[in-house]
């Protein structure tokens, strides 16, 4: 079964410096029908103005992933980590038993477009940690490229404390990629940009889809430019 969450139905906040869409309930946007999907709790599509950002704030017991589409984000946290993340990188911050961090647009001239994802961890009170990995832009073209997973079985994958995997794929028009979904597994598909079809259903930029009881996901890029998508494989 595939249930589409239309992009325009998402929550939205526009504070001038921040224009954000919330796939699931977040901050002042609260919809009991959209509180998350399985362990996936947040997908925020943020556009942050030049030089602006989120001042120091705290998190606890959450796996927080950041994926940048355009521009660069400057991350600082209370463990002493300070990094800039840009396109074709994945950042994972495990909040564990407590972390304070800030995220600012690293540029005073260009906006940044980023996706922030929260996944509930399997355990509470873990030690906070930070990981950031880059990959070649070509790796995600025409296939699902693993960004995050529960075990570090690949040096280029960030580890999260949950039985969940996050993939990215960029599909050009008529270019397809398939993903076998194991029995009793669930998936969430989120279109980051462009247009695609999922098992024959059209998905536009910003759309999401909850998937259950499907054996295979087949994504295909649609005209005119194809699209980029995140795929979550969830318990």
């Amino acid at each position, binding site marked *: 079964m595939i249930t589409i969450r239309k992009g325009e139905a998402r929550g939205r906040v526009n504070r001038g410096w921040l224009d954000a869409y919330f796939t699931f309930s977040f901050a002042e946007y609260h919809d009991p029908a959209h509180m998350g999907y399985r362990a996936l709790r947040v997908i925020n599509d943020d556009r942050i103005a030049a030089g602006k950002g989120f*001042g*120091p*704030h705290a998190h606890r017991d959450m796996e927080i992933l950041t994926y940048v589409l355009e521009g660069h984000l400057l991350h600082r946290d209370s463990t002493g980590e300070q990094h800039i993340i840009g396109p074709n990188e994945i950042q994972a911050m495990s909040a564990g038993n407590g*972390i*304070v961090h*800030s995220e*600012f647009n690293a540029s005073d001239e260009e906006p940044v477009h980023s996706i922030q994802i929260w996944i509930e961890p399997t355990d509470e009170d873990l030690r906070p940690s930070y990981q950031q990995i880059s990959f070649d832009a070509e790796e995600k073209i025409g296939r699902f490229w693993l960004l995050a997973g529960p075990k570090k079985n690949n040096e280029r994958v960030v580890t999260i404390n949950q039985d969940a995997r996050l993939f990215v794929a960029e599909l050009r028009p008529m270019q397809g990629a398939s993903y076998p979904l194991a029995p009793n597994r669930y998936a969430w598909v989120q279109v980051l940009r462009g247009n695609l079809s999922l098992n024959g259903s059209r998905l536009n930029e910003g759309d999401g889809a909850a998937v259950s009881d499907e054996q295979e996901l087949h994504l295909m890029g649609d005209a005119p430019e194809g699209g980029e998508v995140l795929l979550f494989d969830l318990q």
Partner: protein
Amino acid sequence: MSSPIVLVIFYSRSGSTEKLALAAAVGAVQGRAAIRLRRLADITETSSSTDTLVRLRKEYIAPREADVLAADGLIFATPAGFDTSSAEWAECISMLRKMSAEGKLAGKAAAVVDTGDQATLLSFEKVVTELGLRSLTRDFTKLDGIEQAMGLGRNIADVLRDKRQ
């Protein structure tokens, strides 16, 4: 039951006291409190405008009455030489005195991070008492500065959480 809110008010120019403020905030989060971090605005001129100072000015906002009203507990952190009589703290302390006179601080607790200067620490403890705040400053002198601050944050969160139960 919602988490208690701890407001960390600090002043920092070089980033050293910011680290202690962050540690206190992390301790409060470990104690399952929600936190707000507020940095006092610069009043007196500084000869250098370092990258750290530019960043601090960009990342933090100054405390407002609404922040204090929303908080169950306050944590103060300041570098040596910036006691309660300093120009940087004057506006904040004045706001707190006004709120105290209006009964708006009733039931709130406070703690002071020891940043290594006894005179500064004592000036804040005196003000905490004058404001009618419940002092939760604890002696963690066996620990290093960061651990002390973290312990202080955790302690205030624990006390506030117990009070709510």
